[in-house]
């Protein structure tokens, strides 16, 4: 099966007051239709900018220099016109952010925001059918009183509720690719666990491909089919989830795995925050497909 998203030798740099900063140093990532892929790394490793390049946002940034290939569904996002890129966003590619409450607009009701998302998918849809569709979609994310939620402002709902609204909105127009940037990190663990399993079920039903961005390997274990580990702008290791968890080879991946505190109480590991070993060459696991 050919890839839905195929990133080849992607480089990114910023011109800043302090000079040129190298952020991505030539990364390769590919995602098949319906595949759930995680991109894991620490803050500053380049994971969020990768998502913003896929959305076509950084290509339009004055001080950002993007090079390489970002093939999405047969077109190169890097060379598309700004207008064509904009038409992908919210339809073929959508995104869920870390803090659901601050990523929804506080001055509009959920209804107003949801209807806008739906008319982006189909301009001809009548208001009534959009309201019906929004109500039905909120049902799919286990919201039992969609009417109340639609008439609420984001600050009147809990973080978990807003997160589910975000998921429903992001999947409303049947995107081919969903970008999830640290979804639910701002939420309680139990709420995060519920919303992640909900999201996993929905994307599986809709055959939506997902790029799941996180700094915590533990969070992606039950979600992802495949994992890319990114460190300082380079992919250092990638492979199927079970390979990464059972047979990690790269020193950085091993450190990331060791550093996660265990509920079995095995103590706090003595791993360094930074080490020259983390700069070891890339390790790829055999693709079983």
């Amino acid at each position, binding site marked *: 099966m050919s890839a839905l998203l195929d990133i080849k030798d992607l480089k990114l740099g910023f011109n800043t007051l302090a000079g040129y900063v190298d952020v991505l140093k030539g990364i390769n990532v590919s995602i098949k239709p319906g595949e759930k892929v995680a991109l894991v790394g620490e803050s500053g490793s380049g994971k969020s900018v990768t998502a913003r390049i896929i959305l076509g946002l950084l290509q339009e940034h004055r001080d950002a220099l993007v090079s390489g290939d970002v093939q999405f569904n047969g077109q190169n996002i890097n060379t598309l016109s700004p207008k064509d890129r904009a038409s992908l966003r919210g339809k073929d590619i959508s995104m869920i952010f870390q803090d659901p409450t601050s990523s929804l607009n506080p001055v509009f009701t959920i209804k107003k925001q949801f209807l806008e998302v739906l008319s982006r998918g189909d301009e001809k849809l009548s208001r009534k059918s959009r309201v019906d569709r929004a109500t039905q979609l909120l049902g799919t994310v286990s919201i039992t009183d969609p009417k109340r939620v639609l008439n609420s402002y984001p600050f009147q709902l809990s973080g978990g509720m807003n997160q589910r609204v975000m998921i429903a909105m992001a999947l409303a127009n049947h995107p081919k690719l969903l970008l999830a940037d640290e979804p639910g990190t701002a939420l309680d*663990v139990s709420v995060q666990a519920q919303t992640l399993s909900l999201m996993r079920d929905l994307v599986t039903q809709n055959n939506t491909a997902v790029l799941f961005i996180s700094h915590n390997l533990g969070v992606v274990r039950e979600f992802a089919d495949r994992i890319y580990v990114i460190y300082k702008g380079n992919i250092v290791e990638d492979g199927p989830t079970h390979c990464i968890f059972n047979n990690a080879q790269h020193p950085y991946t091993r450190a990331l795995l060791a*550093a*996660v*505190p265990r*509920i079995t109480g095995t103590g706090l590991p*003595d791993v360094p925050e930074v080490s020259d070993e983390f700069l070891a060459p890339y390790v790829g696991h055999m693709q079983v497909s």
Partner: protein
Amino acid sequence: MSILSTDLLSKNFDTPAGSVHAVRNISLDIQQGECLAIVGESGSGKTTLANMVLGILAPSAGEIYFDGELLPSKRSKVQRKAIQLVQQNPLSSLNPKRSVGASVRLGLDTYNMGARSNRWSVVEHALESVGLPSEMRHRAPSTLSGGQRQRISIARALACEPKLLVLDEPTSALDVLVQARVLRLLNELRKERALSYLFITHDLAVVRNVADRVAVCQAGEIVELGDTEQIFTAPEAAYTRSLISAVPVVDNDEMALRNKLASRE
């Protein structure tokens, strides 16, 4: 000997929609040198409890004893100095306009500790004790990494020579590798200085590895309180089990523990 104990501590907030019981009749104690963790979801009352212990909020009912004496609603400098706080987000809890050294020194000036001429060297010593170079005192918080900033927050609290540290989600804003280092540092400091910790967090995996005892809070009440080992291997409350089983796990031993707890539901 217990360093802190609370007796039927409660806090109500009056809102237009009626009275909200944020904390209800919480009685607990922390022994000298102990780390007691308070876990619960947002809204369970853990931060309200911490604010009462710190004297930021006055309890609606109940009493707080520290080092054997009843803490009054208006505390003396000596009493305030003895209980210090490390907050969740070091970027917003350090003054961006002040050098980190000046932030660390503020407590020394406030509580009039030692000779004025000696205070900068106390600051430098505090920075070294958390593994930072003493020259760092001239830097602004914005030039430091998240882990360095959180070490500054810890140094700031320790410079006041407290007996009890209240740690409110001290590592939840940090990367996992940085979190592991900061938690190790906190463990070492507690042993070296015979400090006591009130450790507030929603991360049970962290609790398992740092706390001696755990209090599980739900809707302002303690639903379970016990030794860490016992809470994780044989939790009594269904709520505790559900919290533990929501923790993302990395290895097969953890998975086995989670499945064992889930089968008891």
